[in-house]
C-alpha cells in the first residue's frame, strides 16, 4: 500500500482519538452532541477510506450507516429528547475535566503499549488502527464511567462502539463487518428508545425520577 493511503488512514484514526478527548472535555450537552456528530463523521470518513484502499465495497455500506445513523439521526433524536424531557444542559461529572484528561492520557498510553508491542506480525496500518481503536474504546468507557447524565453516557457508549467499528474496518478483509455495525446500530437504537420510554432524565441508575430513592434490589 502506498505511503499516502497509510498517512490518511493514520490521520483519520488519530483524529478520532483526538475527538474522543474533546468529548471528555465538554461540559455542555449540546456541545457534546455536536462533538459526537463530528466523531461519527470522522469515523465514516475513515471507514470509507478503508473501503477505498482495501477496495472492499461492502464497507461503504458501513460508512453510509455510520454517517446517516450516528452522525445525523442519533444526535438529532437525542437533541429532541433533551428538549422533550427538559434535561438540564449541565453535564455532571464524577471527576473533573483535568483528572479525566489525565486518565485518558494514561489509557491511550496503555493501549499503545499493549497494542504496538503486540502486533509486530500484522501490517503497520492495522497495528496503528488497532492501537487507536483500543484507545477510543477505552476513552468511551472512561466517559461512561465518569459522567452522570444518561445522554452523555449513551454518547460515551456510542463512541466506544465507534472504536469497535474502527477496529473492525481496520481489520483487513474481515467478514460480517456490515452485519455487526447494523447489529450495533439496533442496540443503540434500543438504548435511545429505552431512555425515551423509561423517561430517564438524569441517570441510568433508575428508571424514573420518582423512584430514585425507592426500594432498589433489597435496600432496607
Amino acid at each position, binding site marked *: 500500500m502506498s505511503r499516502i493511503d497509510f498517512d490518511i488512514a493514520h490521520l483519520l484514526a488519530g483524529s478520532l482519538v483526538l475527538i474522543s478527548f474533546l468529548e471528555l472535555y465538554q461540559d455542555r450537552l449540546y456541545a457534546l452532541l455536536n462533538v459526537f456528530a463530528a466523531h461519527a463523521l470522522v469515523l465514516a470518513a475513515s471507514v470509507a477510506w478503508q473501503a477505498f484502499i482495501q477496495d472492499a465495497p461492502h464497507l461503504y455500506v458501513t460508512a453510509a450507516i455510520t454517517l446517516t445513523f450516528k452522525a445525523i439521526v442519533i444526535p438529532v433524536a437525542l437533541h429532541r429528547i433533551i428538549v422533550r424531557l427538559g434535561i438540564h444542559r449541565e453535564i455532571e461529572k464524577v471527576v473533573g475535566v483535568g483528572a479525566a484528561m489525565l486518565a485518558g492520557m494514561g489509557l491511550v498510553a496503555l493501549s499503545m503499549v499493549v497494542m504496538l508491542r503486540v502486533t509486530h506480525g500484522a501490517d503497520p496500518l492495522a497495528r496503528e488502527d488497532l492501537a487507536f481503536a483500543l484507545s477510543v474504546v*477505552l476513552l468511551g468507557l472512561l466517559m461512561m*464511567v465518569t459522567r452522570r447524565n444518561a445522554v452523555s453516557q449513551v454518547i460515551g457508549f456510542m463512541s466506544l462502539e465507534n472504536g469497535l467499528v474502527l477496529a473492525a474496518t481496520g481489520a483487513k478483509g474481515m467478514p460480517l463487518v456490515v452485519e455487526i455495525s447494523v447489529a450495533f446500530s439496533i442496540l443503540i437504537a434500543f438504548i435511545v428508545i429505552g431512555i425515551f420510554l423509561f423517561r430517564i432524565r438524569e441517570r441510568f441508575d433508575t428508571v424514573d425520577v420518582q423512584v430514585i430513592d425507592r426500594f432498589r434490589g433489597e*435496600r432496607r
Partner: protein
Amino acid sequence: MTLTIALVCAAALLALAVVGVIMGRSPASTRVVYGASLIIAAVSFIAGLAHLLGATAPVSLTLPLGVPWLGAHFRLDALSAFFLIVVDLGAMSASLFALGYGEHETAPQRVLPFYAAFLAGMTLVVLADDAYTFLFSWEFMSLTSWALVVSHPRIAENVRAGYVYLVMASFGTLTLLFAFGLLAGPDGLYTFAQMRAAHPSAALGALALILALIGAGSKAGIVPLHVWLPLAHPAAPSHVSALMSGVMTKVAVYGFVRVAFELAGPPAWWWSIVVLAVAGATTVMGVLYALMQHDLKRLLAYHTVENIGIIFIGLGLSLAFNANGLPFAAALALTAALLHVFNHSLFKSLLFFGSGAVLTATGERDMEHLGGLIHRMPQTAFVVLVGCAAISALPPLNGFVSEWLTFQAILLSPQLPSWGLKLLVPGVGALLALSAALAAACFVKAYGVTFLGRPRTPAAERASETDRFSLAAMFFLAALCLVVGILPGVFIDALAPVSTALIGARMPPQIGAQWLSIVPIAASRSSYDGLLVFLFMLLTGTLAAFAIHRLASDRLRRAPAWDCGYPDLSPATQYTAMSFAQPIRRVFGTFVFRAREQVDMPPPGDMRPARLTVRITDPIWDLLYAPLVVGIGAVADRLNRLQFLTIRQFLSLVFCALVILLLVLAIWS
C-alpha cells in the same frame, strides 16, 4: 459372601427408606419399618460376626457405581467387620426400642425414611474401600442424621442444632476430602488398595493423619470440634440419639483408625503426641461440661465426648507403641480402645434409651423437673442404674474392663524412648483417672436427681413404666454390659484379628487363663477376673443379708424422713442437679467455665425469696466459634453494599477490571 450379605442388607435398608416415604403417615408404618430394620440389622450382624470370628481373609467387591472410571469398591476385613458388628448391634437394639418408643412419634413420616437411610449410610461407611464411596456414605450418614435432628422443625433450637451440625459435618467431610486428596496424589489413586500400596512420605502421612484427626474427630466430637454434638444428639428422637451417640461417633473412630493405621503409612512417633494431647483434653473437658448440665440428654451427649477422648487415648498410645517398635503394647492399647468402642456403644445406647423412656413417661428432659422415678418406673430405673454403673467404670461391669486395659497400656509406656511421650503420657493418665472419677460423680448426680429422691413436678409424679419393647431393648443391653464385664477374655480374643491385621501383633489369648481372668501381659504383672469379683460380691452380699436377717432382726418400720425440726419439707428442698454439682463447679468450673455464683439474700422482713444465680460461659465457643461467626457476619455486611451500587458504579467495576488486566498484560510480557 459375608460382604455380599452386608451389602444386600444396606440396599434393603435403602429400599426400606423408600417404603417409609411411601407409607408415610399410615399407622402400620412404624411397626413395619422398625421391625424390618431390626431383622435386616440382625442378618447383617450375623454376617459381620461370622467374618470376624471366622477370621477369614478380607473379601472385597467392586460395583460399577460411583466415579465411573473408579467404580465403587467395598471390602470387609477384620476392622470393618468389628465396626459392622458395633453398628448392627446398635441398630438392632435401637430398632427394638423404637418398636415401642416410635409409637409416641407425632410425625413418623419425618423419622422413618431417614432412620433406615441413616442405618444404611453407617453400614456403607464401614464397608467402603475407596475414597469416593467412603466420603459419599460418610456425608450421606451426616445428612440423614441431620434430617432426623430437625424432625421436629417447629422447635427453633432443634433447627439451630441441625444447622450447626450440618455445617460442622460439611467441614469435617471437606477436611477428610483433603486427607484423601493428599493420599490419592495428583493422578487420583482413589481406592484404598492403591493408597495402602502407595507408602506416602512421613511428612505427607503426618499431614494426612492430622487432617483425618480433624475430619473424623469433628464427627466423633473431639474437643474443640465437639460443639455440634451436645446440640444435635439430644435434639433427635431418643433412639436416634442413641444411634448418633453410641454408633455414629464410633463410625467416625473407624474412619480415623482406617486412615491412621492403614492408609497414612508407617507412623512417626510424634503423631501420637498430637492425638494424645487432644484426647486428654477431650476426656476431661467432656466430663466437666457434662457435670455442668441439667438436661439429661445433653449430659449424656457430653459424656460421649469424654468417652471418645478415652478411646482416642488408647489409639494414640497404640500409635506411639507401634511407631517405636513395640507391637505387643500397641496391640494392647488398640484392643483397649476397640473394646471401649464396643462398651461405650452398649451403655451409651442403653442410657439414651433410658432418657427416652423418661421422656415419654414425663415429657421432661430437664432433670430439675424429675425425681423419684424409681418408684414409678422400677424396671427402667434398674437398667439405667446398670448403665450408669457401667459408664462410671465400676467393676464388675464392662466400662471398667476397657479403662483398666487402657491403664495397663499406660503403665507400659515408660518403655517409649521419646521424651515428649515420657512427659505427656503420665499427664494423660492423670487426666484419664480424673475423668473416671468425675464421670462417677456426674452419674451419681444424673441418676440420683432423675430417679431417686421425691418427684419435683406433677409430671414426674404421674410417670408410668414404659412399654415392653423398650424394656426388652434396655434389658438386652444391660445384660450385654454385665456379660462383657464378667467375661472380657472372650471379647478380647475376638478382637485379636483386628489388631493382627492393623499392627501385626495381638494380645495373648485370654481363654486359657485360669478362672476366665484376663492377663494383658503376664500373670505376674497384672490380671483381673470380673467373673470372680462378681461372684464374690454376690456371695458376700447375700451371705451378709442372710446372716443378718436370720440371726438378727428383719423387721422394718416406715416413718417420715428426718426433717431436722422443719416438718413436711417440700420436694423443692431436695438437692438439685445444679446444687449437687456446686462443689465440683467451685473446684473446677471457676477457671474452666469462669463459673460465677451470685447470692441475692433479702434482708430480714423482706418477703421475696433469696436467689442464687450461676453464670457459666463456654470457653471453647466464646474463643473459637463466636469470633468466626462475628467475622463472617462483618464481611458479609461489608460486601453486601455491593448489591446497592448504581449502574455507573458497576460499570466502573468492569472498567477497572479491564484496565487492571491490560496493565497486567503490559507489565507481564
